[in-house]
């Protein structure tokens, strides 16, 4: 299977990543289900949720790295694709609640009932069908990315200008989703989900399965990304990053390369969002906040941009740090986080993986 082939040792990080994911895939179910809850080794649902969250963010980071690290497009709007995927999943989950909502309305979600909506708005149709919803989780982010990219790249918007308008995009979406009249639950968004494909979302088994799916999705998108960056297309993309006009002069349609990559990256982000929502149990407009996109960029920078593994490591590390600090020193965690960003940019320009590989060379 050519898809899986890679020159041995060419990508230690990746090898380790896949190994790590495999370990998770094997041990999480055991630690959660077989190890009794009394044992200190038991992995609680909380632990699983946390892992799931990290892995979803890792996918988002992967998406950002693919276009930033390899193509030099700094998107400050990737949270938008993440959130859209999430909302698509959220709409499906809302429809699954059915008559179990507090008002017991078989069709309308609770927030529509107390805002006196009489019937389901048209854009909610079909979301009770998982296949359709799943399609939307991919299609909507892809469509937005396609439209946006087609405009922006064709007009040769680059550099900070591109970054800022991606930010404007996610900001506008945030404001829009905050409006209760939009029919997406306003500030509260969607929550209180009951089950997915008939399985109880609160059951540990479901959560384990969701985690395994996330693991699979992350591994899959990692392999896909690596396949791209190691293909000739990947070399073209790096060429675009380093000398755009030159690439144009040897005859590559730079715009379409950018567009394809941007759309694919948006799809990864969308899937990540879709997996994020059922595990976290809520999606609301806050997810569109420009700050989230910036954070995603920072995960990549911390991990080391331009190395797929680095992006993933960065996402997991920063979010782990966040969890740890908000628990351990709630008062000072912002200091720690802020200091970390400054430190990394100043002393680890190529991120942690950069540091590691350099050390590797020294030996």
């Amino acid at each position, binding site marked *: 299977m050519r898809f899986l082939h890679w020159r041995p040792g060419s990508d230690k990080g990746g090898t380790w990543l896949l190994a790590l994911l495999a370990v998770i895939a094997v041990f999480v179910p055991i630690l959660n289900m077989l190890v009794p809850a009394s044992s200190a080794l038991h992995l609680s649902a*909380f632990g699983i949720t946390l892992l799931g969250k990290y892995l979803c963010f890792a996918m988002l980071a992967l998406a950002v790295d693919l276009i930033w690290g390899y193509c030099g497009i700094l998107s400050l709007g990737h949270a938008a694709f993440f959130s859209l995927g999430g909302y698509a999943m959220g709409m499906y989950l809302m429809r699954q609640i059915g008559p179990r909502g507090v008002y017991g309305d078989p069709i309308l979600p609770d927030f529509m009932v107390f805002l006196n909506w009489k019937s389901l708005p048209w854009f909610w149709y079909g979301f009770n069908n998982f296949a359709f919803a799943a399609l939307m989780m991919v299609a909507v982010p892809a469509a937005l990315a396609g439209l946006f990219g087609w405009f922006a790249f064709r007009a040769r918007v680059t550099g900070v200008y591109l970054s800022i308008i991606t930010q404007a995009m996610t900001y506008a979406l945030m404001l829009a989703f905050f409006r209760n009249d939009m029919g997406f639950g*306003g500030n509260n968004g969607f929550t209180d989900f009951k089950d997915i494909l008939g399985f109880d979302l609160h059951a540990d088994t479901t959560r384990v399965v969701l985690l395994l799916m996330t693991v699979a999705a992350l591994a899959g998108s990692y392999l896909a990304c690596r396949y791209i960056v190691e293909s000739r297309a990947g070399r073209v993309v790096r060429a675009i990053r380093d000398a755009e006009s030159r690439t144009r002069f040897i005859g590559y349609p730079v715009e379409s390369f950018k567009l394809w990559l941007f759309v694919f990256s948006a799809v990864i982000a969308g899937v990540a969002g879709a997996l994020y929502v059922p595990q976290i149990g809520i999606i609301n407009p806050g997810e569109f906040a420009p700050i989230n996109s910036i954070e995603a960029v920072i995960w990549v920078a911390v991990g080391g941009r331009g190395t797929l593994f680095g992006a993933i490591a960065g996402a997991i590390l920063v979010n782990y740090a966040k*969890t740890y600090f908000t628990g351990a020193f709630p008062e000072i965690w912002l200091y720690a986080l802020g200091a970390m960003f400054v430190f990394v940019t100043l002393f680890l320009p190529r991120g942690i993986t950069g540091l*590691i590989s350099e050390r590797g060379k020294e030996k």
Partner: protein
Amino acid sequence: MKLKAFILTAGVLAAGVFYSRAQAAPDTIKVGILHSLSGTMAISETTLKDTILMMIDAQNKKGGLLGKKLEAVVVDPASNWPLFAEKAAQLLEKDKVSVVFGCWTSVSRKSVLPVFEKDNGLLFYPVQYEGEESSKNVIYTGAAPNQQAIPAVDYLMKEVKVKRWVLEGTDYVYPRTTNKILEAYLKSKGVAPADISINYTPFGHSDWQTRVAAIKKFGSAGKKTAVVSTINGDANVPFYKELGNQKISAQDIPVVAFSVGEEELSGLDTKPLLGHLAAWNYFQSINTPANKAFIDQWHAFIKKANRTTNDPMEAHYIGFNLWVKAVEKAKTTDVEKVLAALPGLETPNLTGGIAKLLPNHHITKPVYIGEVKANGQFNTVWKSNGTVPGDAWSDFLPGSKDIEADWVKLKCGNYNTVTKKCSGQNYK
């Protein structure tokens, strides 16, 4: 192999997060505090964290509870709604706390609700809110709309003879619901639709020129006009400043607010607010021995003689005491037993009344309406006689007037009296 080392260390560290740190000493009872200490909501929520810390401190001085010391577990959900859910899970599943005091915004409560219901935790929610909810695992010590909004409107109608109404709110669920209730209520009192204007602005709206001009126009139709404000936190200062600058005084168009309290006033120039109204269930200025003692205790604890107290603090004060009473009655901190013990319990509030926990998990509260004074305190101009029982499901909303909550007899938070069915949490 640095990379290996890196991954291993990461793994080891991670274990620290996923698995409980050293189990708490068995002779302590853990109390979780789930209030944002950073981010946009830190403004309001840090105070509540300190309030509970103070209560715990005092309780421990009294020798603790059931002979054990209380131990506070503080986490920072950082005003990030998904993080609220995560931290709630951490408190319940990892730190295994017996009770949680927390949340401010509706969305944060909605976000943690499934977690508390799944892990069968116990949450005391201290802030006035839109109602339309009653969970087995949540005790609502803040005001429901019928304990704040409706009395305020009554006052304006009777005492101030208001004929024309502007319902101005931030666009989120609390104002939306409250305004729906008020609109229905006003119409039931014979107010013409033309005399009601409802408008919503985004969070942190800072440029009020257009809106205030519109209000001014609406208010100059010759009938006495008032603004019922459900504007959220940060948007208030610019709103009142603009009112003041456009020369709209409390005499011309009074504004009654449901989310402007002593704490918020301490953070802004009160000049433009003078004489404007707020409806709460507690004012720091209310002169009772209990309140005086509480304020002194607070100042001593926070080591600042000018720190204000406010309504949600009283709610936490009541909630904490209710919980303590329940635990003593149940002789255990087991959530099921405590929940069984809670309904019907009574504890004095700070304004000389009694707070009773009702079967719908809401409490009885007095209602006060005050005018803002220059010193950032309220001058009480109206008080309800006796206390008002909190109503989880409004009688003025088509969706919810048939629904009632009763965790004693019906064992249901939303029992539909027409279909005779219980949906939501205990859906059959």
